[in-house]
């Protein structure tokens, strides 16, 4: 059941990313281009997604456990530390340069474009270096 839910959720998410324009890096860069010709479309993506999660999570997280699993596996960290800020800043810079964030980049594998694979290879290399660094 867990795996079936994962398949349905992954597919819904992928449809959402493609439908919303998030898989088009030019559109993402247009959204971040406040000082050029700004494309506000992606505000609606985040707005609609947050409208769902902000309202529904209040109820879901009051449940004693999820429907098909034993527990809620939520991030435990709450501190605003330099690592969080540095990571978010580096991510933002890379997001601006390329127009890709991880979700849309992985969903874009469907487009079978060699550029996507170059991006993903670099992204996983960067994350792997981060993983090694964090262990020390």
């Amino acid at each position, binding site marked *: 059941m867990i795996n079936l839910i994962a398949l349905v959720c992954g597919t819904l998410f992928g449809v959402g990313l*493609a439908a*919303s324009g998030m898989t088009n890096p030019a559109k993402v860069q247009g959204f971040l281009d406040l000082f050029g010709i700004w494309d*506000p479309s992606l505000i609606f993506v985040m707005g609609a997604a947050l*409208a769902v999660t902000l309202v529904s999570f209040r109820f879901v997280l009051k449940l004693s456990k999820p429907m098909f699993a034993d527990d809620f596996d939520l991030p435990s960290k709450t501190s605003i530390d330099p690592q969080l800020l540095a990571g978010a800043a580096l991510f933002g810079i890379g997001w601006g340069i390329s127009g890709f964030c991880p979700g849309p980049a992985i969903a874009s594998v469907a487009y079978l474009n060699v550029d996507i694979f170059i991006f993903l290879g670099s992204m996983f290399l960067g994350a792997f270096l981060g*993983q090694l660094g964090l262990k020390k």
Partner: protein
Amino acid sequence: MQIAEFEVLLPLIGGLFIGLSALALLWFNGRVAGICGIAYGVMSRATEGRFESAELSWRIIFLFGLVLGAGAFHMVSGAPIPVPEIDLAALIGGGLLVGLGTKIGSGCTSGHGVVGIGRLSVRSIVATATFMLFGVISVFVFRHLLGVI
């Protein structure tokens, strides 16, 4: 500020799908729909040889669904497939920064931006504001000051 022609309906529908996916994954499976967390969870388990973990299979299946869903949308709707026009240096440099940043910053647009803010995590709100701000600065610097993207 100049504003481009923009769409409302498809982004809203897309966002709704993303929100519903995050809701279902949390409600049914108790897991966070943060794509980095899911993808790097596969990477860390694979690179550390922990293949037996029950946490591995659903993650791979979710990521498969992500690709399936994006492909299915274009097949069914007939919407043109976006062709990235990004030069090689930006693909590689951007990819490295996105991977490193989301790993050490514990999340990306989905994990912090949709799920974290959805559960009113201050950490996620700060992270999202930070990567949005640096995204805007990055496009300003690389597009308008340096003219390289």
